[in-house]
């Protein structure tokens, strides 16, 4: 069996991965089909149906505008997943750029890592809040703020892999054969860093969804009427005592999405590199 086929086989027989992938797949599907399956317009309020508890008509109840929570959660999945995905991609690119340069070119290592340490000295959420306050509240700015918060740790992971491989014999051999830096970096070294990077990125995705919710909670998240998970919770938190369903539903949605992503990441790690340490937020 080819290496790729055997890799896929191991992946699919890993329980974590399959359950995680199913959950994420489910959420993704619901998010993509939100426009079709959502029973109501998530942005349109119904004056007569304000603050109604879950019922047959509104499975998850309504908020103070009379908007259907289920519809908002479904559409919110789309935006929250988009945010998470974009944060993951940008973090991956920035992390690779910084981490690879740092790990490969010794002279860049010192200053770059000091800079990364400085960013990591802030609890990531405070950094995100500060950046969001500066840039202003919008979906794009939230993505940048969260990416900035997640990049240093990612860069470190890439750097670690690059440094391990840098010293290996086949790299020396390649260089002896006349290969340029860029070629060595991409063909040989990055291939080794791919595994931990991929695992790290699934966690970044998950944490981004969680952190977007926190930013909305503090008040520096995406502006209304965007129904991100965090925005729906933030919107209902004044009414937690009188109308708890507004907050409970989106929280559960976050839970399911993040759980799925975590399981996915676990599965990937089990298959790719079981010796890798479990990541944290």
């Amino acid at each position: 069996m080819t290496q790729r086929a055997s890799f896929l086989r191991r992946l699919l027989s890993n329980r974590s991965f399959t359950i995680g992938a199913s959950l994420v797949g489910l959420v993704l599907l619901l998010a993509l089909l939100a426009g079709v399956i959502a029973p109501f317009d998530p942005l349109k309020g119904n004056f007569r149906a304000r603050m109604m508890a879950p019922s047959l008509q509104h499975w998850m109840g309504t908020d103070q505008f009379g908007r259907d929570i289920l519809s908002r959660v479904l559409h919110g999945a789309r935006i929250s997943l988009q945010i998470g995905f974009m944060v993951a991609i940008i973090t991956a690119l920035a992390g690779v750029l910084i981490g690879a340069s740092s790990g490969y070119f010794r002279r860049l290592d010192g200053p770059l890592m000091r800079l990364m340490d400085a960013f990591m000295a802030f609890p990531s959420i405070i950094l995100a809040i500060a950046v969001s306050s500066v840039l202003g509240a919008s979906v794009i700015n939230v993505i940048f703020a969260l990416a900035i918060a997640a990049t240093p740790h990612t860069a470190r992971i890439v750097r670690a892999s690059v440094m391990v491989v840098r010293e290996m014999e086949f790299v020396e051999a390649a260089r002896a054969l006349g290969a340029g830096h860029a070629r060595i970096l991409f063909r040989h070294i990055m291939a080794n860093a791919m595994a931990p990077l991929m695992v790290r990125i699934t966690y970044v995705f998950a944490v981004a969804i969680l952190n977007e919710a926190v930013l909305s909670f503090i008040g520096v998240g995406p502006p209304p009427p965007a129904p991100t998970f965090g925005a729906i919770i933030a919107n209902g938190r004044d009414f937690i005592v009188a109308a708890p369903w507004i907050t409970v539903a989106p929280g559960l949605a976050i839970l399911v999405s993040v759980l799925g992503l975590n399981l996915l990441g676990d599965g990937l790690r089990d298959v790719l590199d079981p010796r890798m340490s479990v990541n944290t937020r």
Partner: protein
Amino acid sequence: MKKTYLTLAMSALLVLTGAGPAHAQKKGGDVVIGMTAAPPSLDPHATSAQVARNVNLHIFETLYARDEGARPVPDLAEGVTISTDGLTYLFKLRTGVKFHNGKDMTSADVVASLERYRKSGASASLIGAIDSVSASGPNQVTIKLKTVQSTFLGNLSSPRAPIAIMPSEEAAKDMGKASSIGTGPYKFVEYKPDSHIKITRFDGYKPNPAYKERDGFAGAKIAYIDNVTFRFMPETSARDAAVETGQIQLNETTDGPTAKRLRGNANFQVIPVLPFAAMILKFNMAQGAGTDLNFRRAVAQALDLEEIMAVAYPDIYRIDTSWVYGGSAYHSARKTPKQDLAAAKATLAKSGYKGEKLTFIVHNDRPTVDTATVIQQQVSQIGVNLEVKVADWPTTSNLGLKSDTGWNLWTHGFGIEPYEGPASAMAHWVKGQGQRKADPVIDGLFDKFNSEMNVDVQKKLFVDFENQMNDQAIAVNMGNYGLFQVATSKLKNFKAYRIPRMWGVWLD
């Protein structure tokens, strides 16, 4: 025998109808109040924030203060004699008034406090008409005005950033550095930032003998409670839970649905406070779409005020588009505008608006953001494209108060001005302050109002102002809103006002 039965029956009747000693005020006890934020300063001259007033007006008093009907009445002064030309005010001060440090209040303290406020008080412009202040006797202060100002006593008694009377030694200190030493019924104990402020009853306090009961910010302020602690609890859910579990005795601000839960509960009293503020939608008339009268009119016509207020302030709103609150002598019942989408579309077509995206700024307070969300939705129905920009108060107010660019619409609450009276309500629109472009009609009406002593003429001037605001769609007054206060049933005789007054109340 018959007489005994009669006496017995009479006593029984008395006991049953509670016609015995009616006001069984009990002295003692501690009250903890849950407040939304911490005051930015405990120097009463330095800030006009509501939360600062809540605390400072227990510690400090003013020469004149507003009564229950928002009329200026004597507080630390006994009375005033105004010269016939209206330019000289002779205040006779009360005697025997002590500061919390034991010192007697004299005219020197009053003059020092007034001069300090004139120089660097937060709302110094309120008394900008003053030409000179002098002590014309140990218990007499003379104020000379530059021009006649019919609203001078009103301004002097403004609770906004109160012109509190402090000892002259404190008044000599820089703004923000004065210690909390006043003449009020409570004195300052401690302030733990981010946690609480504690005040305790000042036993050397002598209530104003001219009054029998409390009356707004004036009257006889009798303190029965021993200690009052103001806890800063910005999280609504924490405040709601705290009053239910007895951690605090008064939740200063909560919303309708939460308050509704406790309505039937004998352990709590739910106190609706309405009106507390008015919700305003302002246009930037200096640049962009806001310069166009038809655009502004179209937006105003597209609004359904009932929907906006019901979503933002459930159960605690009233559609009233007068620029002062009901109960004021200057209040008039104005026609409630109804949403008219067809007319709005037609008006919009007459304007120069081409469907471009406009910036609608709001600060991140849930009801305000909800207001903006509903407005955005409503005007989208006539083709107006609004982008809501939520930011914290420093960012939003900085933009809206100082910049002609970067915003087109702004919505926020207007609390103390409609309460203070017509001059305060008008002042915000004078010289283009609120709308970024001066309106000569409004400026003219304001000047005339200030120099007009006849109340009937004043009323007519005010109606002219309200009409001008409406016709030119300078801003939209969307209605009054309020808040709910929840207290333990043990707190007796509590009556809501602009601050949670802790005098005249007791625990039982």
